[in-house]
């Protein structure tokens, strides 16, 4: 089993707030890793460090065997990292389909015609095909989140970073989302998924890490982690001795 | 019907140079009246149509409207006046499009050298009448020589067509001033619309200048003049071209406008009269004041004279259908106009002829400020109307 992503003692602080504090872990090729942690723990910041949106104060990010710490976001994307944004970042004046096309042509490097077919496929998978010609700016919050997922998929990533995509879904929608992500995972894509909707997360991931104050405080088999006293206390708010 | 001859006219009706053209309406109206019956040429009567366009004080626009007049209105003669910013682009268009062109109201050096004219060759189709820097210098020296002041002169020349010409080491003020025994302190070309003249003032103070001269636009002069007072610089004579031409500028300076001096190209006291209407300089100036309620300005005479020359050329031309013949006629002009004689045969250089120039000072006359002619040895036919008084 090869390692696709490795964080090596990554540190990042905004003034006094440490969002990554000596953060080290590895993700294996083909794995699905879940990330939980209290609000403000530094989960989204960790994604920013992996994708190159943020530069670390110290430490290294290694992707597919290459040290990418000094590479910009675009370069890392070409190397195979794609993400969804927690706060959706659509190309508001472009249609949903064009949003997808940007990913397919720029990130995945597909030629025009192949890109078109591929985007239609992905849109169908994520349930946005009916909105293909709609301007992204007029989507609802949740549709925007789905667009985030669509775009990330259209980039044909090796490593897919998902930041809270299940929030606000109805039960039925959530089930279909889980199915989609499982399919993606089954096709060989490595996934790191930040999610507060823990039950959805547990359906998919092989391993769970817990972040608090930028530090990795627990890591291991998902259900075991969820049952651990630390997680109960800091994350679920269940008093350990109750 | 009579054949029609079209005259194109470009001037800065609007924009920062609009002061130069403020009397255009008045002058053109009078001219059109005299042209109303048509002009005789070779026994035929020609109707003359004047098409006037605004350059908006913008050289780009001046080129534009000149081309419009030439290509669109197909004018037979094009005329322009007021500063190199108007005169040069119009002349250039006329030259390349082979249309006869007469211009005025811009010293001839920026006109000639500013257009890359080559002495001895000159231009094919474009002619200019006004005075030159040598006349300004002579008039200034004449004025300054009347009083006893330190012969140290501070120079203020902007980096524009006029300023570069006035300050030019070869053709501008420096050489003749030195020859006349004056030392010139010239800190260098400043960019028009500067907010600060402290450095120039410091340099003038340092050198003990008692005279300040140059060519400025009014806002720059106003800034300089109040800063001088603030910074304790009190020259005895201040003689500035362009900025001090217009009564409105002097008025805006209040008390501190009194005693400033300037070149005088034309005034109601000039002993000339119009070849078209017979009116004297005084008649023309008073006519304007009466019609507009505003004081007379110097460009009035030249604008009138411009059309005197046009009328004269139309009358004399051998063949008004042929541009080359018109150009020939212009070159052969010999006319006494309201601003003095215009005769390109006596030009200092190809395509240029000169009119007389004297120097004057703004002095209080009753309530109003009046431009008195205080030095006339350059053109003794123009009588002086006052005596130079030192400032301060």
């Amino acid at each position, binding site marked *: 089993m090869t390692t696709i992503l490795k964080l090596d003692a990554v540190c990042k602080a905004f003034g006094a707030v440490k969002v990554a504090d000596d953060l080290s872990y590895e993700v294996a090729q083909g794995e699905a890793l879940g990330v939980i942690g209290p609000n403000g723990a530094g989960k989204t910041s960790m994604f920013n460090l992996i994708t190159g949106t943020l530069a670390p104060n110290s430490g290294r990010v290694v992707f597919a065997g290459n040290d990418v710490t000094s590479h910009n976001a675009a370069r890392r994307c070409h190397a195979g990292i794609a993400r969804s944004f927690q706060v959706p970042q659509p190309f508001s004046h472009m249609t949903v389909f064009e949003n997808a096309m940007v990913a397919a042509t720029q990130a995945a490097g597909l030629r025009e015609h192949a890109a078109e077919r591929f985007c239609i496929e992905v849109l169908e998978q994520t349930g946005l095909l009916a909105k293909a010609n709609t301007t992204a700016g007029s989507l609802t919050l949740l549709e925007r989140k789905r667009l985030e997922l669509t775009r990330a998929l259209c980039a044909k990533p090796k490593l897919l970073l998902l930041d809270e995509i299940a929030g606000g879904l109805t039960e039925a929608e959530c089930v279909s989302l889980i199915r989609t992500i499982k399919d993606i995972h089954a096709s060989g894509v490595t996934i790191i998924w930040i999610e507060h909707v823990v039950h959805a997360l547990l359906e998919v991931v092989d391993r769970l890490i817990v972040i608090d104050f930028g530090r990795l405080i627990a890591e291991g088999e998902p259900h075991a982690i969820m049952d651990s006293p630390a997680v109960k206390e800091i994350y679920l708010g269940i008093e350990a001795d109750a | 019907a009579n054949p029609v001859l079209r005259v194109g006219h470009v001037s800065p009706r*609007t*924009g*920062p*140079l*609009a*002061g130069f053209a*403020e009397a255009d309406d008045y002058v053109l109206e009078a001219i059109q009246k005299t042209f109303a019956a048509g002009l005789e040429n070779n026994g035929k009567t020609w109707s003359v149509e004047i098409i006037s366009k605004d350059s908006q*004080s913008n050289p780009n626009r001046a080129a534009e409207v000149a081309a419009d007049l030439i290509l669109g209105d197909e004018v037979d003669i094009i005329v322009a006046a007021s500063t190199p910013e108007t005169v040069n682009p119009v002349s250039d268009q006329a030259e390349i499009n082979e249309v006869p062109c007469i211009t005025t109201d811009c010293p001839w050096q920026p006109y000639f050298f500013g257009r890359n004219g080559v002495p001895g060759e000159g231009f094919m189709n474009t002619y200019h009448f006004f005075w030159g820097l040598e006349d300004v210098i002579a008039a200034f020296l004449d004025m300054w020589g009347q009083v006893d002041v330190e012969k140290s002169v501070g120079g203020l020349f902007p*980096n524009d067509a006029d300023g570069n010409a006035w300050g030019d080491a070869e053709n501008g003020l420096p050489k003749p001033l030195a020859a006349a025994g004056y030392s010139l302190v010239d*800190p*260098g*070309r*400043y*960019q028009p*619309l*500067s*907010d*600060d003249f*402290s*450095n*120039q003032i*410091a340099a003038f103070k*340092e050198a003990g200048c008692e005279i300040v001269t140059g060519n400025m636009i*009014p*806002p720059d*002069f*106003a*800034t300089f003049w*109040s*800063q001088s*007072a*603030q*910074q*304790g610089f009190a020259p005895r004579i201040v003689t500035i071209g362009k900025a001090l031409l*217009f009564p*409105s*500028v002097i008025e*805006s*300076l*209040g008390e*501190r406008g009194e005693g400033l001096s300037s070149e005088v190209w034309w005034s109601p006291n000039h002993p000339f009269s119009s070849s078209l209407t017979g009116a004297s300089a005084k008649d023309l100036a008073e006519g304007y004041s009466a019609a507009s309620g505003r004081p007379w300005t110097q460009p009035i005479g030249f604008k009138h004279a411009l059309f005197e020359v046009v009328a004269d050329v139309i009358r004399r031309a051998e063949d008004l259908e042929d541009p080359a013949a018109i150009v020939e006629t212009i070159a052969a002009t010999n006319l006494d106009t309201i601003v003095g004689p215009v005769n390109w045969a006596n030009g200092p250089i190809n395509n240029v002829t000169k009119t007389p120039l004297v120097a004057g000072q703004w002095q209080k006359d009753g309530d109003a400020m009046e431009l008195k002619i205080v030095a006339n040895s350059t053109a003794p036919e123009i009588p002086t109307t006052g005596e130079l008084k030192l400032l301060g």
Partner: protein
Amino acid sequence: MEWLNAIVQGALLGGLYALFAAGLSLIFGVMRLVNIAHGDLIVLAAYLGLTVTAATGLHPLLALVVVVPAMGAIGYALQRGLLNQTLGDDLLPPLLVTFGLSVIIQNGLLEVYSADPQKLDAGALETASLSVGGLSLGILPVLTFAVAVAVIWALQWTFYHTSLGRAFRAVSDNQDIAQLMGLNRRHVFGLAMALALVVTGIAGILLGIRTSFDPSIGGGRLIFAFEAVIIGGLGNLWGTLAGGVILGVAQTVGAKIDPGWQLLAGHLAFLFILAVRPNGLFPRVAA
């Protein structure tokens, strides 16, 4: 000594630039509005001053009593009647509308007042000077500088220590949500523009006393004002003052080397600062 003189005169000139810039900085900060007409509004204020002094014979500084409220009212009306409709994420509508406004003001002034240069006659104030350590300083530039400091102090205080200032910042961040806080954004923006034009009114009168003006000189003033704002860093009015001073000193020092360099030196100083500090010298932390 000559260099010192150049620097001191430049710093005083900077006070005037800071005054030009303060109003711009305020509306830029509150509404993200790039007001191309700002320079022309300064000139408009000078002309209002001219009209008032001509009609009443008041000293130009006393004319402020009329001009300042008038400019405030114009600002409020302009904002509510016109500029409010242009605000949004897009930079262009305000840019173009204020550009149109600039053309209209300029040519309107030309129609009404003609192209003649005008000046406000402040009598002895214009030429009075005081001597400090061998330097001769004009009372007017010193006064201008002092006014600039006072105005900027007042604006800064308003912005960060009053509920009006808080309202300015909130509305500038998110208009919809600010509405939910009971803030009428149209009114708040109107007040911001009114305040900005009050400052512009003061600047215009001081400009009119310092130098003569005609309807066309607004553009040149506008660019200095922008430079001062950006050098100082957005949202920091003291920075704007510093920006004005840097600009003024760069100009006079540049002119000392060669008068042709006066304006160029100011622009180059601006570009240099951008090259080393793209957010200006004193950007407000974490904005």
